[in-house]
């Protein structure tokens, strides 16, 4: 049945919808802060997707306790590692975007990117 997998993969569906919301915010918003919020929603959606895919029902985080070394007791550790790396990347990118926004705001006293562009054209730099 078409769409029968949607319910089973409920988490991934939510993640992809969130990704779409973040993506369109980053692309379409005029306000720079809202753009950055969109960026964060987009990145977080990817981490949700990874975390959801890496989790296996009834298993625990891959930290060996009580000497249990059986593979079937633990979840896949790689997606968690990817999420950690991804968070580092997105934090640094967000920091750069915020610092650029502060620079622009101090110069032009607005957060609207289109208005900044029109003013730049008027300045004729």
């Amino acid at each position, binding site marked *: 049945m078409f769409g029968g997998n949607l319910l089973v993969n409920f988490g991934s569906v939510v993640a*992809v919808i969130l*990704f779409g919301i*973040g*993506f369109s915010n*980053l*692309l379409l918003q005029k306000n*720079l802060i809202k*753009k950055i919020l969109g*960026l964060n929603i*987009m*990145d977080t*959606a*990817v981490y949700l*997707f*990874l975390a959801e*895919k890496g989790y296996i029902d009834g298993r625990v985080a891959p930290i060996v306790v009580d000497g249990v070394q059986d593979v079937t007791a633990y979840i896949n550790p*790689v*997606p968690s590692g*990817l999420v950690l*790396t*991804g968070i580092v*990347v997105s934090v*640094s*990118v967000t920091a*750069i*975007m915020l610092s*650029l*926004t502060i*620079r*622009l705001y101090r*110069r*032009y006293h607005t957060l609207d*990117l289109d208005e*900044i*562009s029109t*003013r*730049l054209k008027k*300045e004729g*730099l």
Partner: protein
Amino acid sequence: MAFVQNFPFFSIILSMFAGIVSSVLPAKAAKWLNTFVISAVGVMSLVLLRFLSATGRPFVYWMGHFPAPWGNEIRAGLLEAGMAVVFCVIMLLSMLGGRKKLLQEVEYSKHNLYYILTDLLLSSLLAMIYTNDLFTAYVFVEINTIAACGLIMIRQNGRTIEAAVRYMIMSLLGSGLFLIGLCMIYTLTGHLLMSNIQDAVAQLFADGAYTVPLLTTIGLMSAGLAIKSALFPFHSWLPDAYGYSTVSSAAMLSSLVSKGYIFLLIKIIYRVIGFEIFTQSKIINIFFVFGLMGMIFGSLSAMRENDIRRMISFSSVAQIGYIYMGFGLGTTLGMVASVYHIISHAATKSLLFISAIGLTDVSHGSRKFHDLTGAAYRNKIAGIGFTVGSLSMVGMPMFSGFVSKLLFSQAAVGHTIKMLPTLIVLGISTILNAIYFLKTVIRIYVPDHRQGGESIPLGAEKVYALTIICFIAFNVALGMLSQPIESWILAGLSMFG
């Protein structure tokens, strides 16, 4: 294992550590360290290239000595090593050519930051070239984006900061798509190493399982990298970013950064998805159409510009269109033409940027065409450089642009549906190129009887003149030695498989 096989790892780590060390060095020392690192990496890649052409086999280097499905890997073949050499040569020349301008445009206290960014850029480019792991590639794509953003905004004025913001936004959209594509392919195949993914994808494709998710994944990764490398409808950030940043940055952004992403895309086509599967998907048709549109609309926008730097930037859009059009042909010949064009465009575009700055400097710093009248008489070497670059872009025999146009048309001939559109658009695009580039060349060689700017005699700026001469020699060498270069690309591409 031969000692030479350590060189890809050495070059990545050397340039990265140079960046870290530069943060505590004074600007002058950072400059020399930067020059040394770029040359050292270039020499190492050249030795590696010789080694690889002697053995004729690519090799895989285990990072941290963990075997295949767990460890991270570096992989070097002929094409990778050669690309590293080309990138180093162009980066070195771009840095040399823009050095004087850097002193004028950027505060001296920020100079060592500039060299840190360049070192990081080199390291991330090399990592993107050599890595065999998709997630590592993503991390270095982001490092590359951040370094490029810094290169744009190192010259502080409203324009460059706005350009950097626009660049960041488009790049982040691209890397978001790339990231989710790569997560999907990880969940489909369970691997992150390129060779393992390729086996799994071939298996999935043969079984006919997960066809739609697989296609979506290929589409997402391709679209992400296409946005980052400024394929036609996504090029809105490009003219500002290239047009207003300091000249070394503009040259490196247009000839290295976007080419790095395209090279990564080629690796993904060959080593992750597999060339056969990629050509059977319909995505190449999208590349083909957008490539053709870029070739025409990029040139049309360039014709309308009244600013020489922005005109050159818009011409980049057209040239990126050529490269994607070559992908869209879906044949090995098309790919060879695209790879050749990556090199040829990188060599020509940086020459054009560097020589344009020489011309504007002698015209009271104005970039308007009207003020550039006769500029080639005031700065002869820049005039010659600009003329050579323009002729190469238009496709004059002897220069590199001619060979890439020839290769594209050879690749198109025999193609049932795509032959006619390719040839027609190639023709139109060549004419448009000729119109706006030769218009500029004629303009700078028209004698100006009004009071011109200062004029610079031939031997005055030795480093600048040397840079231009090296660029011209590189360009002519690419144009004259097309046969060996073509067979090198072909051998390199077959090593990918």
